[in-house]
């Protein structure tokens, strides 16, 4: 698989300016911008980093640059939401899509562990729904409260969930806006800090799970985001990362994306 990817990248480097992927150097692996002449044997596909964040940064910095990116399903979904919001220029990006392994799909609870532009690998079976999410509606309010109070109490306000998130490309963040969240408190104030993010994620989260990996407090953030994504689909028929042509559902009128029957709480 990885060899296949390396060959494709080698080929693309003739037509493109550079290709974004992971690179092993010395003791570690990090995002890298492969250019002609670089040693492609250093190209890696794990661990995962939000490569579209880098693509966006490069597109903004170099207005003419034509890039390739080695992408998983979640990377491509991130790309779709970012391109839709003018953070990536689709005309200057080609996606070298590859399929995740069945194990990866499992641990990511990934419903679509491969990109639309699949070049390498075969689609594995989708992962299961996170059991907590699957059972969530049966959970009484008091238990939901206890659950999140316990988890949020550990938050050390590193903003890692936001910093690592490919969809959190804002210049200014509501979580840092003193009008919503009193600054300097540990754990950060409830409910504003975490719920503002959850609300923003409802139409953006592409379930890459990076936020949970980056969380020093091990908060199961995507339980909340998955629930919001589920509602977003149920209420407004919107699935983040699915369709580059679908407008942000909360921005348009009821005529454009009608409100379906609300689910019971």
């Amino acid at each position, binding site marked *: 698989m990885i060899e296949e990817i390396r060959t494709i990248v080698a080929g693309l480097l003739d037509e493109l300016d550079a290709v974004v992927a992971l690179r092993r150097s010395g*003791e*570690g692996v*990090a995002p890298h911008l492969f*250019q002609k002449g670089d040693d492609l044997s250093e190209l890696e596909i794990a661990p995962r980093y939000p490569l579209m964040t880098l693509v966006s940064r490069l597109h903004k910095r170099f207005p003419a640059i034509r890039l390739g990116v080695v992408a998983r399903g979640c990377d491509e979904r991130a790309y779709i939401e970012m391109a839709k919001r003018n953070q990536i220029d689709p005309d200057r990006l080609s996606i070298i899509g590859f399929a995740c392994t069945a194990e990866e799909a499992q641990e990511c609870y990934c419903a679509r562990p491969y990109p639309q532009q699949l070049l390498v690998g075969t689609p594995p079976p989708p992962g299961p729904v996170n059991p907590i999410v699957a059972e969530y509606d049966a959970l009484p309010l008091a238990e939901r409260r206890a659950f999140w109070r316990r988890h949020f109490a550990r938050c*050390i306000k*590193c903003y*890692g969930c936001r910093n690592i998130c490919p969809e959190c490309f804002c210049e200014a963040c509501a979580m840092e806006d003193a009008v919503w969240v009193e600054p300097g408190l540990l754990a950060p104030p409830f409910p504003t800090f975490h719920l503002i993010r959850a609300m923003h994620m409802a139409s953006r989260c592409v379930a890459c799970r990076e936020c949970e*990996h980056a969380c*020093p*407090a091990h908060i199961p953030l995507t339980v909340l985001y998955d629930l919001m994504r589920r509602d977003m689909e149920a209420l407004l028929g919107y699935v983040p990362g699915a369709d580059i042509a679908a407008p942000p559902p909360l921005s348009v009128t009821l005529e454009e994306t009608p409100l379906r029957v609300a689910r019971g709480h």
Partner: protein
Amino acid sequence: MDYRNTLTTCIYCGAGCQMYIETIDGQITGVWPAKTNQISQGRLCIKGWNVTGFVDSPDRLTTPLIRKDGELVPAGWDQALSLIAGKLRAVRQESGPDSIGILASAKCTNEENYLMNKFARAVIGTNNIDHCARLCHAPTVVGLAAAFGSGAMTNSIPEFETDTNCFLIMGSNTSEGHPLIASRIMKAQQERGARLVVIDPRETQLARIADLYLPFRPGTDVAVLNGLMHVIISEGLEDRLFIAGRTEGYEEMKAVVEQYTPERVEEISGVPADRLRQAARMYAQNRPSAFIYSMGITQHTTGVDNVKSVANLAMLTGNLGIVGAGVNPLRGQNNVQGACDMGALPNVYPGYQAVTSEEVQKKFQDVWGSTSHTGVGLTVTEMVNAVGEGRLRALYVMAENPMVSDPDLNHARRCLERAEFLVVQDIFLSETAQLAHVVLPGAAFVEKDGTFTATDRRVQRVRKAVEPPGEARADWEIICLLAQKMGATGFDFASPKEIMEEIARLTPSYAGISYERLEELGFLHWPCPAPDHPGTPVLHQGRFARGLGRFHAVEFQEPAELPDADYPFTLTTGRSIFHFHTGTMTRRTAKLHQEVPEAYIEMHPDDAARIGLNGGRRVRVSSRRGQIELGVRVTRRIKPGVVFIPFHFAEAAANALTNAAIDPTAKIPEYKVCAVRVEPCHQDVS
């Protein structure tokens, strides 16, 4: 289009997290957490995420500065270095090497601290070298050396997540001081059900999620620890085999501890007797149990006693020499461990080799060509006083800021203002640098290569990602240049890599450490005596460094200053997660500054009512030594009668209030306890 990600080690706290510094065409464009690093595992705290926030600050020093008729004016390197070299030579000739003092730095690399110790001893010929470890873990070094024969953290951080079954955290606000270590503790508690006991005057974040929280009166640590041991012994929970086989002095210790019944301890410390019992059982019955502490234990006039008591408790329950247990002092700075290892102390050479030992002196003499023979040198606090009294005529400070970090700042200021010749090497014009005669522009961590040694004796690489601004230079280069200016040889290093080779030659515990191995393995725990040695995550396995572990019989003593009618509150100081030490870097980092832009004092609502704050937002806090004004946060998370001030803020420096009274052996000041008065400022009521 030059795109790079440079792997390096965080400069905030001693956890040893790593991150990639992303640069595009030589400009810093971002930070990626290092998923492959064993400590941070792709996670960072807010300081780590914003670790480069200050690097491009317009306040950075870009040229050497020389004081001309009262003013600091830009100068060339040669001019500045010649001036310093000339002055130091003159002073040494007139008043001898011990009229010169040197402050090394826990922020700088091992290589730089090694060079600084070499400069002091080989070039100047004095042992007057120390650094701010004095102000944090000196009692640990002394106390644990006495008990175990080695003054460092006994175990390694990853064990907390995988093996520890009970954490006893005392005097450490771990989630704010060492967030990524707290992360391991949280995971152990979440996923393995490990027990968490927190003993602290403040209801810290970990206290709130703890299985058991014991609030207590600051400064009564020994009483509480003796109380825990009393319960353990009286309930027969001690580890008799361990005590018999690996320790000495048990009976004397036991005799003292017997006096500390939970009821008596409750009287002294305010810890409810039954909760003390529960804590003792939880710690003793869930081996491996890790005792984790920090400044709350050490920054007392009884710092060494506290540390010895901690050692007693761990030995009593056999929690030493095994994975997941141990006595774990968390080092506050990125390289405070390394600075100590590298001999930036007045009493030891690198690797804790005594300056008083003839053979050690000879060993270094042989390699260096010369060294000091003047015996144990002065500590930070002593040097500052000596400057004030004129005994110390010249002081060379590398990347430290005693004008904010020292206790009783007004006194410190008076002293340093009298300095005949003060050289400060830093990246910003710190409060201390403002008093200097010569200022040398150093390089920030992203601008130089080297190594840091994390709190668990983990040596990791620091790598250069960008060039220093203007004429600023890496500190190791500066030391070499200065040494050469003074005619010294043995300072012609081409890179830190070469310096590490010399370190390995002279430092047994680093003997097996080299850049090649670090490049391959990522890290090594000292002791690492040989190039094929895997390193030592867990100390004291099978035998203690000193042979048998030593129990010390320790009696409780009150802190030097207690609240009274004039100063009715007990002030304790500490950190906020959003800032680091004297704030020179974090307060210049927008994302951190916006979280906590200014100093504040925490006080209990009852106390707020007592002083008639009614809704006011600012207070005046005064002690016998000074007075500051700052904002107030009313919170139930602190004991009535106790107030807390973070120490990062020069304009409202907690250390204007703190007491310079020091521990007799470790010479650490009592930052954690002093008596203050708090009054509302009335100009803000509208």
